[in-house]
């Protein structure tokens, strides 16, 4: 379990939406074997009786008053966009033929 093959890394890269060269996949796979062995140590002490902590603060459902406050203009919101058109973000084709 504590090692990853080139193909497993390729699948993770696909899930994470990162194109990777074959060379990169192979070298990451070998690094992960070492890293996973080191991080797998958490399993030694994580007994069933220990509750998980996801966050340092015991906060739940923090609300603020529902009041309208000034926000970005469309120009400001689009100022960093790689492409925009008619006050909208212009994006590449989302629905492919295979879909």
């Amino acid at each position, binding site marked *: 379990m504590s090692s990853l093959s080139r193909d497993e890394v390729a699948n993770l890269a696909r899930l994470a939406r990162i*194109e990777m060269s074959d060379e990169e996949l192979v070298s990451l796979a070998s690094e992960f074997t*070492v*890293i996973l062995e080191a991080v797998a140590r*958490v399993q030694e002490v994580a007994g069933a009786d220990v509750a*998980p*902590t996801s966050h*340092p*603060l015991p906060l739940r459902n923090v609300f603020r008053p529902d009041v309208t406050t000034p926000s970005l203009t469309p120009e400001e919101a689009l100022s960093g966009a790689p492409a925009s058109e008619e006050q909208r973000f212009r994006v590449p084709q*989302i629905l492919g033929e295979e879909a």
Partner: protein
Amino acid sequence: MIHSSASEMATALAKGEVTSVALTQLHLDRIASVDKDVHAFLHIDTEGALAQASAVDAKRAKGEKLSPLAGVPLALKDVLAQKGVPTTCGSKILEGWRPPYDSTVVANLKKNDIVILGKTNMDEFAMGSSTENSAYGPTHNPWDLSRIPGGSGGGSAASLAAFEAPLAIGTDTGGSIRQPAAVTGTVGVKPTYGGVSRYGLVAFSSSLDQAGPCARTVLDTALLHEAIAGHDPRDATSINAPVPQVVAAAKSGDVKGMKIGVVKELNGDGYQPGVRARFEESLELLAKAGAEIVEVSCPNFEYALAAYYLIAPSECSSNLARFDAMRYGLRVGDVDGASAEEVMNLTREVGFGREVKRRIILGTYALSSGYYDAYYGSAQKVRTLITQDFTSAFAKADVLVSPTCPTTAFKIGEKSNDPLAMYLNDIATIPVNMAGIGGMSLPSGLADEDGLPVGFQIMSPVMKDERMYSVGAALEAALLSKWGAPILSKAPALGGVA
């Protein structure tokens, strides 16, 4: 003047001995003369800084009541959004992005009339311990330009040590304020999680990230702490409680009767002899100042590093999904017929560096079905155990202490091909982030074997940040009277006028 502390500069400004414009210009000149060697800055906002300085001078001339640090210049880590000023996070994927809004930290700096000189270099998205992972080249340690300044906030720490700025802002997810402070002979504080707003701080690991103050003295750090801290309705994890009285604590520096707990597990094998010697010496000085030194044990700390390298990558794999080439930042491969997914894949290949990709993939794995319980789930349990260790230790001591890092600054390139060796730098700083408590690093002297700065770490319970400032101020005063001059006076002169 640039070698003074921020408080001394503030006093000179208040007395009219210098204007903020002149003080800002002195620092801009210093940056122009030494930053080609240090490379602490990614962007220098000459025009913006001088405009801000001139506005403070005008307010002062009119006799307006100003905040304690008004008119003093500061270096800002490039992970915090500043309206209209390039914000890259050390990444190619954000090259040229100018945020349309201010982070709350920046808004607070502006409200306090603190002059922002520019944006400092960092490991890409704050992932690293050496600033070598910046897409824009490494920062060099002013003590020895062939060595790392720590990371991820190496630029902020180096700017202080190079006298390019008397104040800086860092962010600390696993030690990114404290470890750079330690290896550059400066002071850095990670406040209690939730003490400083994360609004506009580009997220790496949301449950661990915390912005904080950096400076050359404990008092300056406290003044900056109070300027940026406080509740912010725009950050749901911001603590709605009064800011700890850190300035008063730094001014009094009283440790009489305080119990200081030495964490047994954070000192010993793997710590450089010079680091251990300076640590022991600091303990003796604190005992002389009236503190009681006790030993505490935190047995689960040995699992902290492993848990951190599951939790932080898991959260980062989710947080960095926002860099999708659609709304801001880089877009690659947007040719006729290319799908959104192909554009995302190509953009993220080109835009992210090696370490960022490594952590996104590791996080994607740790969160994936079938492995979630074994990795991310177990790491969350370790987080509980670490918090429990702190709770028991704080029942026996008011603050806990350790060396900030196991070694002094290493050579640039020395560990860049060994991720695990690099991760070990943060072994003593990570537990603090896991539990969300406060942590400070301040200089404890130079290691005998290499003459490089060593950091002393002080940890305080949630929202008791004032305690680390009391202890820090006491130790700083004792060390200063032993040395006769601040530690940075021993650093070699940089090119140009010292």
